[in-house]
């Protein structure tokens, strides 16, 4: 076991930890998006879903601490490796031309930092209710917290819509490279499946972003009130 641990001390091993924690976070954003789509079923469904999650504090906090740990490992090791990678080429090229690196793969650091800033904002905004305390203590007709009302209130504000859409651009870009890249880093490769594996990232990224954007725009365009 100690040797397995020492394996993760190398750059290739750290990449594996980044990939695994990243995939864990991907699973979260997918379910987060799916859960939130219940907005389209109306206030009753969304508020009951929120109450359902809050009714299991042990599970909720285990999940939250797990996500936090994954994010800390993911970001910490990514920063560490990025610094090391920069040092691997102290003098750069006068001209450097990319041959096939995708835009998403070249902007991982920027999209990742965008995501981190957005995540902080999102948690302070909709989870903790610090940025906009309206509706935080509001209860709906059944006595559940009125998450629906809060979301609808938030996305009727054009500034919030812009911030959330920008966050989704970061998320989409990051996932486009991240998922297929993680599969490669975890050493999964198959000649017959290579196209499918390469399409994994962009497709999952697109689905998550479309689902999230649909929520924001549906409220903003007053399709959901």
């Amino acid at each position: 076991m100690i040797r397995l641990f020492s394996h993760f001390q190398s750059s290739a091993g750290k990449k594996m930890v980044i990939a695994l924690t990243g995939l864990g976070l991907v699973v979260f954003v997918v379910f987060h998006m799916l859960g939130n789509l219940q907005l389209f079923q109306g206030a009753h469904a969304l508020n009951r879903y929120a109450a359902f999650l809050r009714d299991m504090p042990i599970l909720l906090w285990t999940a939250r601490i797990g996500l936090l740990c994954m994010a800390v490992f993911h970001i910490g090791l990514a920063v560490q490796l990025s610094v090391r990678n920069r040092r691997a080429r102290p003098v750069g090229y006068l001209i450097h031309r990319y041959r096939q690196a995708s835009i998403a793969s070249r902007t991982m650091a920027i999209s990742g930092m965008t995501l981190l800033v957005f995540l902080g904002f999102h948690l302070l905004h909709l989870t903790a209710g610090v940025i906009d305390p309206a509706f935080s203590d509001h209860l709906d007709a059944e006595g559940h917290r009125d998450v629906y009302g809060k979301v609808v209130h938030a996305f009727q504000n054009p500034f919030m819509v812009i911030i959330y859409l920008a966050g989704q651009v970061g998320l989409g870009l990051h996932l486009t490279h991240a998922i297929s890249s993680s599969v490669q880093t975890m050493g999964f490769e198959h000649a017959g499946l290579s196209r499918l594996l390469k399409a994994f990232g962009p497709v999952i990224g697109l689905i998550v972003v479309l689902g999230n954007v649909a929520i924001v725009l549906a409220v903003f365009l007053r399709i959901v009130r």
Partner: protein
Amino acid sequence: MKFTLKIWRQEGPHEPGRFVTYEAHEVSPGMSFLEMLDGVNQRLLGKGEEPVAFEQDCREGICGSCSLVINGIPHGPDQGITTCQLYMRRFCDGADITIEPWRAKAFPILKDLVVDRRGLDRIMQAGGYISVNTGGAVDGNVLLIGKDQAEAAMDAASCIGCGACVAACKNASAMLFVAAKVSHMATLPQGRPERERRVSAMLEAMDREGFGSCSNQYECEAVCPKHISARFIANLNHEYLRAGIVESGRPSEPESPHAESS
């Protein structure tokens, strides 16, 4: 044909370098890139100046000596060839061409366009071999190896160790090189007994030499003169993960025979 060349000149490993512009006259379209540089050097020698140092040997794309970044791309604009196989007809007459050495912390510049690539040799010393004596060539069909395996091993073994993958990678990572060597030997029965120790030792050596890690951009694959696929990097990661699991179940050994010779 005429060209304006912007070439990196550096007197020695610790001297500061700079770009110097030279004119290349009377270049025939059929000349290789290195022959064009030979012409430039002839002219410099005639004028009593120091010729541009660049590495070359076989000039037929198999030795892996030539190592120029031409207009921002290692081995130049064509795919699947080394610098010596690049012909001047590939460029427009009168074009400006920028020539730089491989740039990486692990490849210190010795002079002008010549870099020290012994880092790759030290990675090989760490585990890129098999310890048992295999004797002479065996009779056909004594050691049965499936066609798929034989071809995969051959694809990986075609690596000539030129270091273009390191030069092209934004992280100056040698992952494609290590991947090719590890995959080559892990695919064949002769390489199997040492596969766990090999992959760990070679990746550790890669880190020690100061190469970066992989960002899965596959720029290495695009510039590789031997078209080595980035799927070998997935294979390397697989081997490494496998080694971590297999080795963790083994009793600790005294001294690794793969310890890097100093």
